[in-house]
């Protein structure tokens, strides 16, 4: 499923998205709403948000520092609770485990709760190729599945479509009457979904927190459809990235308190499902079998690096996407990756190879807003900058595929020259004097030099105020040395 995305691929999709006026309007309005809801909630209800962030950060870093032993503890306790725990080293392993479970039980249709891990492994496509239908139940996921798109956002997958567009999709794909009121649209989705729920034997979900000392999993959702996939089917399969591990319910509660406000600006979501295993003897409902697939898919590589490991603290709240000035202009699809936005820029090359995603590191102005809002304090901007250093081979040399990553030789020569000049005062003054003298010429030829050309496409040439050194020398009282 991984292939190399070129600069050209990115330029094309970015151009397309930037020119999509409807998309731009929808994204702007949705991100503004999410940003303001979060901000207002934190102001009103979370005076100790910063302390909570530190607690959340520590809860995650504690587990990541000894992840292998926490995973082992989780497996032992989950197994005691009656879960069947599987390990998947690759995306393919995870898909095969699920496929074999389905095949052995004669399952042809799978009911799906929202799960980014399932997107990461390309589950729907894999199942389709094997003749099994994977049916999305999350409202947003349903909408995009109907039009054969991938999630545009990790929390709100169909946020790029407004209610009028959703009404049209339901009309075209479900034969529903044309509506645009949210209640009516929900009604259509509900009616469609209820019909779908009947007769499914196997449900797939993601995991928000895997609690090691209890062997339990915690799932956060807003619609109740997630609960349907975990309780109504005979077989429940949860896909869980190994980084979802936490030590205890207390730690999960701290992270849950950070997750809901960060994600959608609410204190708590409508449904919080804590699952401690399959149906026990004498119980009337719940799945007869419950499986957990612990997915690595290169997470161990991320864990091994002294700095990148912090990216595994991510609780997938999506607030870094909401606050990103690049994401809110181009939307998630322009990243050509499962995970868009700042966290996507950081983890995509590590999961799928930097050689396949060299350009993604450019999609950031290093404004730092993502790091400022991240509820578990992942230093996202620093990690993005480090990815660029992997491309230039001046970093730690730890990201998969960095050696084969295409990199501009012209830029490298330019930067080497820049560093040489900027480390030598005499050279620097000479260059500055030249650029001052030739500023009018630069104006004339600007449109022919590649870098200036890009600057001048949307901006006028700056007015150069002239020789600083001459002015300073003439300024009374200054010690010029």
């Amino acid at each position, binding site marked *: 499923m991984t292939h190399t995305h070129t600069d050209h691929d990115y330029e094309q999709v970015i151009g397309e998205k930037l020119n999509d006026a409807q998309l731009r309007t929808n994204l702007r309005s949705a991100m503004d709403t999410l940003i303001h809801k979060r901000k207002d909630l934190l102001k009103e209800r979370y005076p100790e948000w910063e302390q909570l962030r530190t607690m959340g950060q520590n809860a995650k870093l504690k587990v990541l520092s000894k992840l292998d032993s926490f995973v082992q503890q989780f497996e032992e306790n989950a197994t005691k609770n009656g879960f069947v725990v599987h390990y998947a080293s690759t995306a393919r392993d995870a898909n095969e485990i699920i496929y074999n479970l389905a095949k052995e039980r004669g399952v042809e249709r799978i009911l799906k709760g929202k799960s980014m891990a399932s997107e990461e492994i390309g589950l729907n496509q894999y199942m389709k190729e094997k003749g099994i239908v994977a049916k999305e139940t999350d409202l947003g996921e349903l909408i995009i599945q109907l039009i054969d798109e991938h999630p545009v956002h990790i929390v709100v997958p169909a946020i790029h479509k407004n209610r009028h567009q959703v009404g049209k999709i339901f009309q075209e794909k479900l034969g529903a009457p044309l509506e645009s009121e949210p209640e009516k649209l929900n009604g259509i989705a509900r009616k469609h979904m209820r019909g779908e729920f009947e007769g499914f034997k196997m449900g797939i979900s993601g995991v928000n927190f895997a609690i090691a000392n209890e062997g339990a999993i915690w799932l956060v959702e807003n619609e109740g459809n997630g609960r349907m996939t975990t309780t109504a089917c005979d077989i429940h399969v949860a896909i869980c990235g190994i980084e979802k591990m936490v030590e205890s319910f207390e730690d999960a509660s701290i992270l849950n308190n950070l997750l809901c406000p960060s994600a959608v600006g609410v204190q708590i979501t409508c449904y919080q499902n804590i699952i401690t295993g399959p149906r026990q003897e004498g119980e009337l409902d719940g799945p007869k079998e419950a499986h957990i697939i612990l997915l690595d898919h290169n997470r161990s590589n991320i864990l091994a690096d002294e700095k990148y490991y912090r990216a595994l603290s991510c609780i997938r709240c999506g607030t870094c996407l909401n606050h990103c000035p690049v994401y809110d202009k181009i939307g998630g699809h322009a990243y050509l990756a499962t995970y868009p936005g700042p966290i996507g820029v950081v983890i995509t090359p590590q999961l799928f190879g930097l050689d396949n995603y060299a350009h993604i590191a*450019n999609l950031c102005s290093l404004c730092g807003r993502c790091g400022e809002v991240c509820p578990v304090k992942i230093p996202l901007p620093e990690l993005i*900058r480090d990815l660029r250093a992997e491309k230039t081979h001046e970093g730690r040399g730890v990201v998969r595929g960095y050696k084969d990553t295409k990199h501009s030789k012209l830029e490298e020569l330019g*930067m080497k020259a820049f560093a040489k000049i900027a480390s030598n005062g005499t050279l620097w003054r000479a260059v*500055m004097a030249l650029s001052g003298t030739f500023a009018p010429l630069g104006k004339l030829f600007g449109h022919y030099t590649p870098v200036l050309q890009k600057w001048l496409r949307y901006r006028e040439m700056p007015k150069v105020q002239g020789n600083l050194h001459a002015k300073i020398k003439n300024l009374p009282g200054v010690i010029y040395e």
Partner: protein
Amino acid sequence: MKVYFFATCLGGAVFSQTALNCIKLLQREGVEVVFKKDQTCCGQPSYNSGYYDQTRQIVLHNVRLFKEDYPVIVPSGSCVGMMAHDYLELFEGHKEYDEVKNFSLRVYELAEFLDKKLEVHYTDLGAPIKVTWHSNCHALRVSKVIESAKKIISQLSNVELVPLQREEECCGFGGTFAVKEPEISNAMVQEKIHDIESRQVEYILSADAGCLLNISGAMAKMRSKTKSMHFYDFLAQRVGLGA
């Protein structure tokens, strides 16, 4: 008191008048300014593009150039973020770390220095005026000096500061980002300008040459009526330093 003044690369290349005003603002408080003629750039262009080894050469040049124990005053929160914060990251685990740290601890943004160290109190000599303000991202989030600039503006009694709706959103400059992703950068600056124009003020102020180069360049292309001004040029005018 003696201080070093670091004009920054854009201060040297484009905003030289601003650099002079900054020096005058320091001298006005009785500070003696030392200008090292061999000063260059803080190194952000190569650092933010991932050329860490190259950038370390520039860092050491600066650290060794400004060797006396004077404060180093910089009229850009972005460069201060680099020199006071990122320099340390670049040299973590390197033998020169202590030498770099000794330098980084002495770096101040001008407004920060005027406000916190010199505790300035200005009398506004200008006519009533409405302005708006763009916060540079690194000044806001890395060097955290925006508060000082705003405190100084609040001392100017004839200046009405109309806040932007998206004050804390990036203008799209981002150093080499503006030329690496020109289309996205343009979408960002257009949004910023839309916000600026809807404030209906005379000037957009910012204390960072990079952001101003971007915003004013794009506004000029659009024939915008709002003018841009570097915060330190504005401040110098208001307190009667002319130019």
